[in-house]
């Protein structure tokens, strides 16, 4: 409609254009985006670095068919008390879980140190646990699968993840188990026909009652009569008879349904709720001591620089092979620990040349040496660990892996204050002026 030529038409055209743009934006944002992986990067760095340290994690297969099994296994160390963040609850009650986009796998078994982990358990700080989860392919696709530990009052702490492809057809999926009453059932479809049958029976009953009333005049005429004080006349003898039938029918059907179920399934248990007790792995004596003197995070260089004092109490010379934090592995290429497990480790979490030492010579038995260590890789950014400097507690955590001349591994925790450096050179304490850092 135009009252004035030109002016109003321009306004309407502009409004129309704006409406079209807004509609397009609304449609575009309403189209669901596919969220495939790496949601763990949204978790604060201090949680990932200072709580559960995942290591030796492997996925036995990268491709399985529907109904085929794959095992995800490894170890985790619960950070010691001195490194555990104050803002997160300790694992007094926790559950070994898997992070996956729904039941694209079914979990057939879950063990920690040989104990069945269908229930939850408590875990001791500073101790190690070996875990193993068996998954069975259920839904075809390429899925990112992480280990995970849910901790009560702290939330999920996600381990490393890797892609596993499931091939085949979901219609072929079978998940049979034998009950203690001797029946073999398929868990994927068990009880569904009976569920739907009873829901339909009750729904038909309920809808019939509703339709009885919906067939009559509903609001206006009834309202007028109620307002005039003639509401009692709206309830007829037929209505009362129908109500009696409905009352008796509902009571009777409830009774019949209960008795029928009791006769058909006489042996039933209540839901099982229990808490397991899991003994940690035996403690290995800590023969390589690490004392953190200073740690800085150089933002422009994406590197964590540590000054350490390392004491070798083993009987053999040791070298630092790896720094592991928040599932990212920084390897020292000069130590050469790219074994088969490391080669299969997810590439986005593996900085295979990421660990550099100012002095790479072996630390001799009985020697105490001050060493400068740099863990540098783009993973600090891609894994969103660099935002640690904005966390409520500017501390980091991780583990060092030392190797002696026999290849024996010595694991030692490290953690402490992390000072950010926002410039290329950064402020350096006087005693480090002659060092590389």
């Amino acid at each position, binding site marked *: 409609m135009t009252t004035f030529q030109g002016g109003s038409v321009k306004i309407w055209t502009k409004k129309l254009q704006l409406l079209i743009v807004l509609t397009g934006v609304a449609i575009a944002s309403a189209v669901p985006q596919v969220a495939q992986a790496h949601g763990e990067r949204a978790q604060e760095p201090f949680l990932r670095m200072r709580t559960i340290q995942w290591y030796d994690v492997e996925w036995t297969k990268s491709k399985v068919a529907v109904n085929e099994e794959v095992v995800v296994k490894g170890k985790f160390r619960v950070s010691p008390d001195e490194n555990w963040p104050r803002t997160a609850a300790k694992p007094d009650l926790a559950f070994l879980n898997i992070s996956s986009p729904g039941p694209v796998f079914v979990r057939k078994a879950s063990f920690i140190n040989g104990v069945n982990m269908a229930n939850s358990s408590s875990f001791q700080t500073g101790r190690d646990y070996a875990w193993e989860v068996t998954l069975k392919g259920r839904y075809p696709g390429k899925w990112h699968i992480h280990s995970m530990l849910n901790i*009560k009052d702290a939330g999920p702490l996600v381990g490393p993840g890797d892609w596993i492809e499931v091939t085949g057809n979901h219609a072929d999926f079978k998940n049979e188990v034998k009950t203690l009453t001797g029946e073999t059932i398929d868990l994927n479809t068990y009880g569904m026909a009976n569920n739907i049958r009873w829901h339909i029976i009750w729904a038909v009953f309920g809808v019939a009652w509703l339709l009885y009333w919906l067939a009559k005049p509903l609001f206006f005429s009834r309202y007028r009569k109620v307002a005039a004080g003639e509401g009692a006349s709206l309830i007829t003898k037929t209505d009362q008879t129908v109500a009696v039938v409905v009352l008796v029918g*509902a009571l009777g059907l409830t009774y019949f349904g209960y008795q029928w179920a009791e006769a058909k399934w006489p042996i039933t248990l209540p839901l099982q709720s229990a808490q397991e007790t899991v003994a940690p792995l035996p403690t290995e004596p800590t023969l390589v001591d690490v004392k953190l003197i200073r740690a800085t995070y150089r933002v422009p260089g994406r590197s964590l620089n540590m000054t350490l004092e390392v004491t070798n109490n083993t009987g053999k010379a040791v070298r630092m092979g790896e720094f592991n934090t928040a599932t990212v592995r920084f390897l020292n290429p000069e130590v050469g620990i790219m074994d088969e497990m490391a080669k299969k480790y997810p590439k986005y979490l593996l900085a295979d040349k990421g660990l550099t030492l100012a002095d790479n010579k072996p630390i001799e038995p009985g020697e105490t040496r001050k060493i400068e260590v740099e863990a540098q890789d783009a993973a600090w950014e891609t894994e969103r660990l660099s935002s640690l400097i904005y966390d409520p507690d500017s501390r980091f955590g991780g583990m060092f892996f030392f190797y002696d001349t026999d290849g024996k591994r010595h694991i030692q925790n490290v953690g402490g204050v992390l000072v950010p450096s926002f410039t290329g050179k950064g402020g350096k304490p006087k005693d480090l002026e002659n060092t590389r850092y």
Partner: protein
Amino acid sequence: MMSSNTATAGVVSPEAERVGRALEWVIVAAVVLVVTGSFHLHAMLTMGDWDFWVDWKDREYWPLVTPVLIVTYCGALHYILWEHFRLPFGATLAVGLLLLAEWLVRYFGWHGWSHYPINLITPATFFAGALIMDSILLLSRSWIVTGLFGASLFGILFFPSNWSWLAPFHVPVEVNGLVMTVADLIGFENIRTGTPEYIRIIERGTLRTFGQHSAPVTAAFAGFLCTLMYWVWWYIGKLFSTVKYIKRGAL
């Protein structure tokens, strides 16, 4: 609504009656949308997990929390439909719309999109108690009697009316040396990243008897609480259906 303080209350022309009847279906559509959406939201925010997962349907929390929080809308709709229109089907309408919403969301969303098996996410049925409440309201014409008998039966009969489909999920199995029910096993096997096992609030508390049958004790307590909740929400229904007019000239 027309004023009806006349001797000819209820007498209107056939034309007006036809238009009124057509308009009623518009009102029905609006009521369906509002009740379905709000009741489903209310249910999921309160008793959600207990009614959602088969491994949360225990003998203590599920038969207590669920009926107590579902009888709410039944009471409110009872007031609105009975007091103004002498229509007794408020409870059945409420639970029917709730179940419609629950099935749509679970079938298309949780099953169709996220691939959860239907037997893990089957909702409870509430029709037994709702039909009983509706019929008692009509026969007694009293909200007090309906609360005392109808609402308490809604709570008491919730567990037995659902046992017909739930019983097979409580058959025992042994898995890797552990005794579980089929429901526990279905819950364990179908990975739920945000639902660790310890978060299940089941089989805790002191609603127990010496006979190992917690369900009857819970049912009795649920019946008692449902009566109270029904009466409270009868008045919430009144609050939401009372119209006050501003007198002409008052402004």
